[in-house]
């Protein structure tokens, strides 16, 4: 009987260790300029967030980060794309709060990692490296209004859970561009502004 319980305990610990090994957590700290758009690109929902900031806690360096999420309907179901990481500073250009551009080839950004996860009923999520390519966005401030925001979010998108603390000042903006070759434009959900201290933690189970 003792042997049974020892084996059970060891098995439980092993399974727990495997579970921990497959879970990934990445935290981004952002302060300074940022721009974000949430668009429908030919049926795919795409959220693109570019900001000055860094990976890690505490933040020792000042980089530019890019975080993207996409929900891509397919013939057999849906694919969740989540990508995040450091990109060259020159890829994200801003001119105060009025105008910003993003132009990055993620295949050339070694610090940017993207994952594609497909949901299969009965089997759960199957994840693999996601697509790479060019992402271009141009933001132009509109006169619709200005916002001060403090927010705590816990969002689930497929196998990724994101905890976000936002502290931002921003203006409404119009965003347009292309996402891996698919054009989009958005006049209602884009923003351009400043992060006072925004922290994004992405947890993935696969």
């Amino acid at each position: 009987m003792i042997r049974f319980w020892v084996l059970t305990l060891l098995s439980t610990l092993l399974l727990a260790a495997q579970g921990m090994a497959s879970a990934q957590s990445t935290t981004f700290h952002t302060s300074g300029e940022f721009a974000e758009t949430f668009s429908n690109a030919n049926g795919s929902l795409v959220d693109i967030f570019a900001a000055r900031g860094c990976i890690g806690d505490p933040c020792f360096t000042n980089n530019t980060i890019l975080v993207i999420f996409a929900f891509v309907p397919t013939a057999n179901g849906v694919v969740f794309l989540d990508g995040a990481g450091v990109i060259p500073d020159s890829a994200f250009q801003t001119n105060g709060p009025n105008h910003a551009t993003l132009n990055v080839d993620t295949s050339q950004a070694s610090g940017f990692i993207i994952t594609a996860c497909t949901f299969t009923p009965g089997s759960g999520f199957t994840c693999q490296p996601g697509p790479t390519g060019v992402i271009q966005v141009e933001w132009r401030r509109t006169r619709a209004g200005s916002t001060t925001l403090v927010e705590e979010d816990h969002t689930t998108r497929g196998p990724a859970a994101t905890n976000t603390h936002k502290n931002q000042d921003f203006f409404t903006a119009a965003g347009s561009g292309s996402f891996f070759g698919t054009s989009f434009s958005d006049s209602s959900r884009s923003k351009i502004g400043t992060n006072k201290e925004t922290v994004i933690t992405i947890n993935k189970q696969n």
Partner: protein
Amino acid sequence: MKRFLLSALLIGFGLVAVHGPAAAQTETFHARDAFAQTHFDVSGGEVDISVFRGPDGSGGTNTFLSYGSFVENPDGSATSTSGFGVIPSSAFDAQTLQHVTLNVDTSQVAGFRATTCIFSVTFTVTCTDGSPLGLIQIDWQPNGASSTKSVQHLSFTSGPFTRHLDFDQDESSADASGSYLGSSFTDPGRALVGKARDSTVSITRNN
């Protein structure tokens, strides 16, 4: 990332009206039940529509609708419209969040407020009360893209209006489609349905 800026454009889910000094008028609303939002692009701008259910202060429920638009005009001016107020609860069917509908003609709703403001090229603002009003019909269905538990505090200023929003709610991404004041629209994937635990908005008109 889904606290959409334009959800703040014209949120009117509320209840208690507090009238301040003559130069500024503030209305405060509360929501503690189902809500739905949609935002869609139109030529030169966007439209935002939100509907909420909340307490009426006497043990019952109220349903609140707000909508607004902001459109850049070719001559450099911009037109901002807004409307908000209590609507008949039968107009908002949210018995199940798997399918939520709104069907209301705001021109037939007593007390519903609407304002149109023109932003000139030099950013001066001129507002006229009484429009737009009319028929709004929307279907929402969750799409499974995301679900969020959100607590946010937001202050949004547009023209003569400042809105202070305190949200505590659960929300799911949704597809929305319907008609807004005579024009059909679709909002595939970026709409929201959910339930407010305890949300409040204060709308102040500064002139």
